[in-house]
């Protein structure tokens, strides 16, 4: 393994991590502030990707497509919150899981009804396509670098929002004592709608950004959702900082484990056996990581409560 290959894989891990952060940030806010398990978060990711693909197809502009993804996912999030989620806050987690699972099915079949069963096309814009040469001679796709930059910028923006603005104060207050801030005159139901729409918009943005790299198709959100849950469990529920650290840990562990483990097994095993054992173990790594974190800190790295 060369140093260049290793650095390239670290960048890949970072890019995967910030993408997971966009998903996990919304999930952890909703879980932390409202105490709601939202399985349909992956569907909002899909809504963002489909909105972006449709707008990019009609206008040819990637920036417009990203804005459409944000808007469509936020709108879908707000509508879902008003129509369904609102009724679930006082119910137990099992009811929430059941209702939001139903939402996944509704979103999936609704999207298929509108867009058909075949994957849609969404491509990287010309100005970000192709590789750039980094110091040291590493060829790295410009678009992936852009995802890293956008993700980190959004993380910084969220920290500012949570710690420096009135909305952020209300979100943190709502997280620690929902009855008390309602008694202080904050319109808690409006706050919940705003938080839910914000989380949905981030998921939609992640869907659109990743849709250009991967494929835009029905059901694309569910595999990411599982990883996003792993991230918020590692990071601690309700913590944006935890979501960022957790996402980067999961991204780096998954990417680097995928190449380092087979290479390690190759030292004392035959090539194809090393490859299959190594990659089988690598796919378990993030769950092993999660288990270790939970043993060490049951409330997650930055979680306030267990």
């Amino acid at each position: 393994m060369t140093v260049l290959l290793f650095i390239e894989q670290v960048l890949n891990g970072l890019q995967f991590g910030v993408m997971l952060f966009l998903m996990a940030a919304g999930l952890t806010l909703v879980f932390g502030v409202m105490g709601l398990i939202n399985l349909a978060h992956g569907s909002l990711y899909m809504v963002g990707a489909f909105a972006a693909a449709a707008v990019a197809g009609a206008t040819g502009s990637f920036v417009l497509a990203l804005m459409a993804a944000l808007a469509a996912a936020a709108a879908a999030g707000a509508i879902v919150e008003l129509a369904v989620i609102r009724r679930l806050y006082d119910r137990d987690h099992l009811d929430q899981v059941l209702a939001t699972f139903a939402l996944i099915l509704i979103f999936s079949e609704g999207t298929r009804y509108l867009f058909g069963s075949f994957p849609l096309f969404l491509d990287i814009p010309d100005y970000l396509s192709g590789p750039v040469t980094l110091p040291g001679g590493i060829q790295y796709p410009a678009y992936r670098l852009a995802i890293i930059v956008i993700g980190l910028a959004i993380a910084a923006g969220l920290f500012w929002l949570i710690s420096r603005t009135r909305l952020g104060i209300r979100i943190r207050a709502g997280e620690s004592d929902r009855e008390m801030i309602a008694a202080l005159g904050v319109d808690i139901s409006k706050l919940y709608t705003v938080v839910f729409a914000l989380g949905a918009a981030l998921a939609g943005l992640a869907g659109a950004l990743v849709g250009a790299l991967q494929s835009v198709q029905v059901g694309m959100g569910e595999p990411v959702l599982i990883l996003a849950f792993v991230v918020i469990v590692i990071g601690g529920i309700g913590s944006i900082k935890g979501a960022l650290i957790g996402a980067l840990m999961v991204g780096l562990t998954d990417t680097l484990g995928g190449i380092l483990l087979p290479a390690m097994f190759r030292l004392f095993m035959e090539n194809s056996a090393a490859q299959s054992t190594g990659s089988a173990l690598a796919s378990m790594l993030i769950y092993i990581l999660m288990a270790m974190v939970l043993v060490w800190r049951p409330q997650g790295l930055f979680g306030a409560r267990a």
Partner: protein
Amino acid sequence: MNFKTWITAAGIAAMATTATAGSHGTDVKVGMITTLSGGGAGLGIDVRDGFLLAAKMAGNDRLKIVVEDDQRKPDIAVQLADKMIQSEKVDVLTGIIWSNLAMAVVPSATAQDKIYLSPNAGPSALAGKGCHPNYFNVAWQNDNLHEAAGGYANTAGFGNTFILAPNYPAGQDALTGYKRTYEGELAGEIFTKLGQKDYASEIAQIRASGADSVFFFLPGGMGISFLKQYADSGLDLPVVGPAFSFDQGILQAVGDAAMGVKNTSQWNKDIDNAANAAFVEAFQAEYGRLPSLYASQGYDTANLLLSAMSKADITDGDAFRAALKEADFDSVRGDFAFAANNHPVQDIYVREVIKEGDVYTNKIIGVALEDHSNVYVNDCKM
């Protein structure tokens, strides 16, 4: 979607009853179990549409079809098969796309003396020791297109290929199939996670390996992701793969990234014969899109069944199986015959992805393997 598919089936049945085909004999009831919802629904929809198109064009009022959605879940496929066999009394089952679903359904259906015609899945377990006189595969044995890719790699002069496929039975069969015919060296061999969408890590390893070519089997969305990321990485090694990642249904989502890629297939819309020309034209007129590989397989499956119905009565099992085995129908692929284990003997072509106007599609550039059968024939005792 169940409602809609019932309507379609009922519509076909209605058309069939108004047709004046004058053949006599017992009705043949077909149960089609295929994937019409969830990821991968595009494949099942194409198989269904191809099958129903052939039934409609034949206008044979003795052919009754029911269609059900397996949601790509083995347990649901098994329930549907039990229901179709026990309460709907079907004579023939067909439609399954995925090998794991086929393994769950086919052995028990054939053991209950039902005919199973596979329009897609061809797992090796059903071609070798597990073969059955009631099981006919009208598409291919799973290894076939990968063997053809290996054959193409030899003629194209590839000497150091990097190969990758998902870590599940069909992915392992794919790499085995490629290595069976490919004569050069391997620069590397990777099993990826099933359903993986980000291939940055694998592409970096390909770049570092010094390969001169890449073979991959990544069906559906996995292939779309890989090709887009590969094109964006600045690597320009030649790529070859089976047709599944370059099919009509997904090419539009891959876009320019697929242009010029070579892939292996037993069918393409430009194969020059009357049956194929009629199929491509009728499919476009009926559904308003170009037919895919899967649609051609569904169409051939229905025509095989219709050819057997015109020769033998379904109540005479031996005669009906013999009529199926003759494969006396005009396949859209041209020459088509069954090997001893009821899997196709057929030419497999090399195609290249091109653009016709605004539509991405394939054209045939050569034959990879002629009259190709499969290696499991000798393991089959029946």
